[in-house]
């Protein structure tokens, strides 16, 4: 669905295909080219050489506004996109731009405000909302278009544990054979729980593509992308120093419990 072959000088020699039904994580050090790469998906940036295809359409032959029907992009900072005088108008903005009918707009605005628990503020100004609510509103205002591809740029930044939990649930609901979700993040603990496939960029090149478990327990890749392994993986490595049979690819709580149980049993 999406192919990318070398492009902007920041990105070199990339060839990636994203399949519907995947939640894809994108990680890498600061300046690795993560944002540059995702901006290629909705045509904000176009490749200098090579091509990007979104749902069969070459991004060089279409505009970002046209791609907005298929690709939703939630930026890091909600304040960079909120402007309307009410939540209703904010969510309706993209729908109006894309020429939806009035009934369809009203219906979708109501549905998406409800989904993100914002209905009671619908006539208020977006600027009166709290930080977390603004973030949710930004999400609602992009999702209402019902894009096939959704890009989330650092959605967990400055969010408390409860919000992250909610985001995780929402992302799970987006995991179906129709959709692709791309998550740009530095948050390894979140990524390991949220994504099915992980791409790691370093200095504009793809250095890893595969299961988050394998990648996030590979010290060589983590080092190049300036990432720390998930805490439980670090824990596993420490334990393995004493008990060589302890598995190293532990990343989640249930895996750790399982591995520790096995260790206790074997020690008896």
């Amino acid at each position: 669905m999406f192919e990318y072959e070398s492009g902007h000088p920041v990105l070199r020699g990339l060839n990636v295909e994203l399949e519907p039904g995947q939640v894809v994580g994108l990680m890498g050090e600061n300046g690795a080219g993560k944002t540059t790469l995702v901006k290629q998906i909705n045509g904000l940036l176009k490749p200098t050489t090579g091509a990007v295809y979104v749902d069969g359409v070459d991004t060089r032959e279409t505009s970002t506004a046209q791609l907005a029907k298929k690709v939703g992009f939630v930026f890091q900072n909600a304040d960079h996109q909120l402007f309307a005088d009410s939540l209703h108008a904010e969510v309706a903005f993209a729908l109006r731009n894309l020429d939806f009918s009035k009934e369809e707009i009203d219906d979708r605005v109501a549905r998406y405000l409800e989904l993100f628990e914002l209905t009671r503020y619908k006539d208020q100004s977006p600027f009166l909302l709290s930080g977390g609510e603004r973030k949710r509103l930004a999400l609602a205002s992009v999702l209402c278009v019902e894009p096939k591809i959704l890009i989330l740029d650092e959605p967990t930044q400055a969010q408390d544990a409860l919000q992250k939990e909610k985001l995780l649930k929402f992302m799970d609901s987006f995991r179906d054979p129709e959709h692709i979700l791309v998550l740009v993040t530095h948050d390894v603990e979140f990524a390991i729980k949220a994504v099915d496939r992980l791409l790691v960029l370093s200095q504009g090149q793809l250095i890893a593509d595969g299961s988050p478990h394998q990648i996030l327990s590979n010290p060589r890749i983590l080092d190049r992308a300036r990432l720390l392994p998930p805490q439980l993986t670090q824990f596993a490595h420490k334990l393995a120093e004493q008990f060589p049979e302890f598995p190293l690819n532990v990343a989640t709580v249930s895996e750790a419990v399982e591995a520790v149980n096995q260790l206790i049993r074997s020690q008896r």
Partner: protein
Amino acid sequence: MTAIFEAFRFKQKDTFMHGLDPRTTFFMAVSFSIIGMLFLQIIPLLLVFLSMIPFILLARSTRQWFKSLRGLAYLAGFILIINSFFISFSFAISTVLRLVVLMTAFSLFFLTVHPDDFALALIKMHIPYEFAFAFSMAVRYVPTIATETETIRDAQMSRGLELERGNVIQKVRNYIPILIPIIVSSIRRALQVAESLESRAFGSTATRTSLYDLKLRKSDYGMMLVAAVALAFALYVAFVVRIQFPYLLPDWFFWGFPF
């Protein structure tokens, strides 16, 4: 849209122009601007413009300056069309030239003077510290806001905003979704900066000392003299010769297109 800010983005370089005292560069920029404002004939303005090019070359900032001129192209085109339509083509050309002269004069200043040195220069010119600081902050935040503007534009385009859609009024309205977030986030940032200034004891002492001091050197006096002579000569031509002895001025001085 944001290319125009390139003209005001300071870059540290080791050149003759960068080495000048900010007061010298400021005096030069003001002199050039005044000279540019004195005349509205094509050839004199062209001469002023050409006389500034060596300084741009000396500052090794040709590329940045050129970029800013390109950013100005839209506005220049607008001025050219409106003025040719209502007044004359010659007037339109000289108005655009004047704009380019003003832009070049101040981009020369902002490209070669570090914002901190500029604040220091203002204090030396007996401007209260708070004002000097506010001014240098304003200059300091221009590139930040320019970058932010690009992000905001990207965010709104991702929501299907098309800036070129509709008639003239609609086109102006298309910028609202970009302008409001810029204003809101600038205000938010201003409040944050104010708090962080206060938490670092801004304004706690009446007299301030500074780590670096500005000193005028021989090259500064030289450049100021050149600028002063040029300014005096231009004032003399504009207010004495042009009014009392216009017949002394050569024909090319008044040359213009016949339409």
